[in-house]
């Protein structure tokens, strides 16, 4: 059975994943279908991108509180990636806020700035995936010397497969979430290909402990684009709350499949957990803070839907 503090951490990651995935899907849409994005993507992306950043901080602080002894390893091994991440993160915020408020339409215009944001978001996503995938496979990481070798990491095919598969998968799901005008079967095909590559690679990363749970993310990932194919069920699939909830559940069960292992089953996560006094405080704070967060989110979504930014009117747009 998963320990409560780890379950909470997984739940926070799942919520963060649900948020960041909407941005990664938006990034694809902005790059490939900018005009359509101005109508369908921005009305959701513009109010929520700041909240995604907050979820990132939430998750990062929770990790620090959960496994403090892992911090020196992460700090030393990934310092280059962390500092690149930080530069890009500031760039992401600056480019999207500039895109929102820019008053000119010359060389530096709204489209260019949104494209810069999209590219940066994609690179940030890849950086996060590189760190996570390396923690799962352990390839390229020397825990004793606290170093990370990118060449070794890339040379291990399941590492690449998991990253590439995830990118393809999100590319496919983007059309569903933002209800883009593409052929109705295309998201299912693309998502299916992405899921097969990512799923197979995930198995070869070497941490799977409870294989049965992998059925949950696999099914959810395929059901959403399948529902989107039919006019009657399209509205359900592209409903923002339903979709993000499904993404969060998928991520949670994906983590559960590997729990408690890291580094291809050579590191047991429970051996790194923080002292009980702090864990107790963190647990109760997360519960109380979580209730406040859920209440705030409900207020936000209530206003979002009432203001007419929900998926209803988008869902009526027929696909080709």
């Amino acid at each position, binding site marked *: 059975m998963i320990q409560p503090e780890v379950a909470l951490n997984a739940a926070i990651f799942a919520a963060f994943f649900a948020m960041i995935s909407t941005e990664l899907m938006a990034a694809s849409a902005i790059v490939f279908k900018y005009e359509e994005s101005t109508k369908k993507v921005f009305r959701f992306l513009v109010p929520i991108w700041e909240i995604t950043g907050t979820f990132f901080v939430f998750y*990062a*602080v929770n990790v620090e*509180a959960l496994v403090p002894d892992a911090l020196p390893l992460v700090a*030393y091994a990934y*310092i280059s990636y962390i500092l690149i991440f*930080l530069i890009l993160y500031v760039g992401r915020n600056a480019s999207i806020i500039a895109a929102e*408020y820019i008053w000119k339409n010359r060389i530096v215009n709204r489209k260019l700035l949104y494209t810069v944001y999209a590219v940066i978001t994609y690179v940030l996503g890849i950086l996060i995936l590189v760190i996570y995938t390396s923690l799962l496979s352990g390839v390229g990481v020397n825990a004793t010397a606290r170093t990370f070798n990118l060449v070794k990491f890339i040379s291990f095919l399941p590492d690449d497969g998991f990253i590439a598969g995830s990118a393809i998968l999100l590319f496919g799901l983007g059309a569903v979430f933002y209800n883009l005008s593409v052929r109705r079967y295309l998201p299912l095909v693309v998502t299916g290909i992405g899921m097969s590559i990512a799923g197979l690679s995930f198995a070869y990363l070497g941490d799977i402990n409870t294989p049965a749970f992998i059925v949950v993310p696999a099914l959810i990932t395929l059901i959403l684009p399948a529902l989107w194919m039919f006019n009657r069920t399209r509205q359900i699939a592209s409903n923002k709350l339903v979709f993000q909830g499904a993404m969060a559940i998928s991520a949670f069960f994906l983590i559960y499949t590997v729990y408690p292992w890291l580094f291809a089953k050579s590191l047991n996560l429970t051996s790194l957990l923080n002292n009980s006094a702090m864990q107790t*405080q963190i647990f109760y704070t997360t519960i109380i803070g979580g209730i406040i967060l859920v209440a705030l989110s409900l207020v936000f979504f209530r206003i979002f839907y009432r203001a007419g930014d929900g998926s209803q009117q988008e869902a009526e747009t027929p696909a080709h």
Partner: protein
Amino acid sequence: MISIINFDRFLMGYTLAAHILIVTLSIALSIMVSLSEFLAIRKKDVYYGVLAKRLSKALIIFFAVGTASGTVLAVELFSLFPNFMVLIAKVDILPFYYEVFAFFLETICLVIYIYYWDYFKNRYHHWIFSLFVAAGTVLSAVFITMINAFMNTPSGFNIPVYISTGVLTDINPLAAIANPSAFSEISHVVTTTIAAGSFALLAYFAVNYLRSRNQEARNVYSKAINITALVGLITIALAGITGDSAMRGLLTMQPLKYAAIELNYFHTMVNAPELLGGIMVNGHLEYYLSIPGVQSMLAFLSLNSSQPVPGLLSYPNQPWPPLFVHLTFDTMVGGGLLLGLFLLYLLYRIFRRKPLTSRIMLYGMIVSGVLAEIVYDSGWVTDEVGRQPWIIYDNVMTVTQAANTSPSVIPLGIGIIIFYLIIVPFTFYFAARVIRNEAVDKELEKEKGVQWYR
């Protein structure tokens, strides 16, 4: 050649200074936006309405970059000082965790406040979200300061055992939060932050008033100057009181830091003088003005105290902090005093029903805006450098013990420094440009057309 540890130190200080510039404005803006909208609703005054809208645009821009620079700092803490964060994570990470929820309150309410401005028919419902935004920003400052207070006066674990063995025992996270300097530091940081931000805004409004050619725009900026001056006056007065209390707290909680800040080049002294200026040259104090008895009088609030103040020579075996903190302290106190006097004069003019917008007053506001940032940064330098070489006072952990010594920090750290040199001025320019992009007249016309003003 700079060592990696000193580079870590510089990078952290540099990004913190940049973040402080943005955050002081974000906090002050959140308060001004809330006040302006409240007055707009209460008085049905379109000028305040326009002011709230214009400032809210700047707020979201500063918020966007400020959250990113805040995240940079949070991540830098564990990546540049991993051993420090290990200790914090085990003993005192709760304030960071509380801050996350304050951050959520601020973010979600700001998103609703800005992007759904016209959604609310009852304007007070909309205004309430601005209150939550302001509360979220202030609470974030409160929680972060709790961590800084822990670095100055650690508690919540067995310190002697940790110093002798390196093992953390008897951990009590709640005691760590309620550390001895927490209250005095929080009250001082919150009031000075709002004061510094208010002065910066006052300078901005003064510049715009001087540049405005039409009366409508001047009306908007004149009202902005009035409420900002009021907030500045209240907070600078509170900053003086809380600063005095924080300084006296150092006497018992951080006597070495106190001695360095006061440049007390003696063992202990009764009826000690206050030194203005002064540097050490070859083991001698030079270039200072001594005011007899004033230091002891301020320290013990008594004209004839028999208690001694601590001096540097009582700590011959401990590394002293760099003594230039005395000069940064003098800058902070002297500058703060000037700002307070200037605001008192503004208050006097308000009572005499004289306008605050005479040319000389406006130039005074511009100077005070710059001075406030210098004062505020001097305060932080005094606090942080005064604690050196300890990252956690006293003998718990040095910066050297905490720092990341990977050489990879340097090239990418330089990248961050260069990037900040571009992004911070850009943020200020962009926010100012966005605000004045639409003419005040047009905004007033739009605002007058809104139903609820009638």
